[in-house]
């Protein structure tokens, strides 16, 4: 099964050029990782909405809260336990935040 690991929180004031943690890089290099993305801080987001007079742009993330989406990892796993184990391994390298594990309904992973 395909799962998306939604990486939330972490340090909002971390410098944008901070290199990736080695332990994280090692996980992302594994064959079952089918795609990943590290996102710039939530302040760099622009949200697009359909308004009555056409598209409406707002400065900032859709959900305005302390919990922001920081990254995304797509993986292949046998079942939820497999996906949760990868999430737990990634979360151990982080300080704070949380990882939401969501099964993919459909998708286009790398190599597909």
């Amino acid at each position, binding site marked *: 099964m395909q*799962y998306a690991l939604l990486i939330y929180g972490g340090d909002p004031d971390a410098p944008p050029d901070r290199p990736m943690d080695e332990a994280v890089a090692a996980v992302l290099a594994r064959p079952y990782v089918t795609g990943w993305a590290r996102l710039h801080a939530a302040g760099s987001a622009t949200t697009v909405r359909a308004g009555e007079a056409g598209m409406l742009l707002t400065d900032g993330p859709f959900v305005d809260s302390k919990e922001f989406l920081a990254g995304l990892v797509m993986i292949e796993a*046998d*079942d*939820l*336990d497999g996906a949760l184990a990868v999430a737990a391994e990634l979360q151990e390298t982080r300080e704070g935040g949380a990882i939401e594990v*969501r*099964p993919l309904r459909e998708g286009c992973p790398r190599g597909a």
Partner: protein
Amino acid sequence: MALDAVFREHWARVLATLVGILGDIELAEEAAAEAFAIAAERWPRDGEPANPNAWLVVTARNRAVDQLRRRRLLAEKTRLLARGLETAPEATMHDPPAFRDERLELIFTCCHPSLALEAQVALTLRTLGGLSTEEIALAFLVPPDTMSKRLTRAKRKIRDAGIPFAVPPDHQLPDRLAAVLAVVYLIFNEGWGGGRVDLAAEAIHLARALTDLMPDEGEVLALLALMLLHDARRAARFRDGRLVLLDDQDRSLWDAGQIDEGRRVLQRALARGTAGPYAIQAAIADLHLRQPRDWRQIAALYDVLARRTGSPVVEMNRAVAIAELEGPEAALAILDRLDLGQYRYFHSTRADLLRRAGRTAEAERAYRRALELTRTAPERRFLETRLAELRPPAEG
């Protein structure tokens, strides 16, 4: 669908096997319900088949395959195709295959930690216990519609999120088994305090099944022993709709046979070298049934349990034993350190200790607070009686 005793004994096993075959609890449940309905019609007429379990599984599987065909989803159900599933002609059912018992896989699926506890409880009662949605709703005092949605959501999450239908590997087993036992004990305690649908009996039934499936797990035996020993006092716990405390209970109403069984099961648990939380609690429950009560040993076991679990409720129970050994003030000193302000038994326990310490005004306030938090009528009547008995010590 209400299942009578005969069906009840087959339900969990048939459903578990079907979940293993079909990979989907919702589909398996619909198919099982259909098969049981067909059996209800045919068995009284044609006689019970030689292997009722296999008959039900094959019949249900055939219905499910038909159903999938109708939905034109068969091609997607690779799991079905991989197992070469075809509708077996019912004529060949005089010699049906033997199906593996997969109830253990099912209970670990239903008690997976990615499901909310209330969903785990409801699913376990529905799938393993065979209770109807209406019965579960009644037991937990929620509208049937709410319970139905809760069950449907949980079943869909199991399917969509890929919650495994498997007994966890060894490194995960202790944690996951603890989660299963917690669900069973929670079901028991719901029944213990309330006495609505017979949840205590359900929990004992589930624990018995678990001891059959995992005969070497000491904590499973210990949980069964704990519940048997508590439940043996059931008939003596209420009198005229009022809760009766252990010391005031009519011991002739205790179920001596069940106490014996509980003690034997506890011995089997201890023989497996378990000293887990349920074994300790069962040993305490056993001590409470003996006369006179050995408060020193009870306090010592609560002390072990409190260190093990860090639970303030356990610490409160230790305080009750300390009150017997050192007096109510020593126990009140322990209670003062606990953060249990929302727990109804904390206030009733504290009230009783204050009463015994002669601190009547404080006792009265504590009884009133306990009354505010109490949910059941027998407990309320008990507390009201106690409150009425509080008299200023002027006459003495």
